[in-house]
């Protein structure tokens, strides 16, 4: 039983760190999106830059929030 519980503990622990790592990679991806939107809005201006930048920053903040949440809750 202890062995089983021990194995269960290490599996979910491993899974947790897998999730945390995945969300960390996603934060980097979100940051790349922010940079890309910045470059795109600098290349072409069509009076819609502010909402797009806002969405990309909100997306990045959300990704950071989910990462912290995963770290604390899982």
């Amino acid at each position, binding site marked *: 039983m202890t062995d089983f519980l021990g194995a269960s503990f290490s599996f*979910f622990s491993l*899974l947790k760190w897998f*999730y945390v790592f*995945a*969300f960390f990679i*996603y934060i980097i*991806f*979100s940051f*790349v*999106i922010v940079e*890309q*939107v910045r*470059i*795109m809005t*600098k*290349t*072409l*201006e*069509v*009076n*819609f830059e502010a909402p*797009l930048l806002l*969405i*990309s920053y909100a*997306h990045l903040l*959300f*990704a950071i929030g*989910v990462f912290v*949440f*995963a770290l604390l*809750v*899982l």
Partner: protein
Amino acid sequence: MADVYISKPFVKKEDKKELVKEVDEKKDEKQTPFKLRKSLPFNPFSPFGFLPKGVDFETRDKEEKVILILRRHPITNLRWVIIAVLMSLAPFLLRYFPIMDFLPSNFRFISLVGWYMLVFAYAFESFLSWFFAVNIVTDERIIDIDFYNLIYKEVSDTNLDKIQDVTYKVGGVLGTLLNYGNVLIQTAGEVPRFEFNLVPRPEKVAEILQKLREEEEQEKIEGRVR
């Protein structure tokens, strides 16, 4: 047989003058070179912007005027929209295929959040690829801006006087119904070929390019070349 009398619609003298003035203004507008015409309000999501107000790009000269801004027809986004919608609905299938039931509830919740973040990223990135991949025609040149992925951008341009041939093609059921197609431009520049892919009203695009080339020729003759 009785005579049939059809009365002409009554138009007041003042209204008639207004109508004649409007027709004359439209005729003058058509004869005015594009660079001297007024800019028109532009919806940022529109795939076809003629004389768009408020449009600017990185390499524009101060005196250069944007005549046309083109994107792929919105219908070309249907594929990624459908995929995004299906991806959004996919978690509901877990009710019938309980592949995640072995996970505790907190893991299941985080997995769901992660899934929707991926769906959002896919949809947003697809939208950005459509929104910023534009073809611009100014009074001096044509510019092709392409963002192939998040980290690769290509901007090419050529002067209007280097254009040798303009061909447009409309094909397929959707293309014919919705009037969108490809405009192929052969140039004598470093980039020998420009292609405006799946743009709306390709015949209008070809017409505008032709008129711009004529205006450019006229400028050269009059010695007004910048």
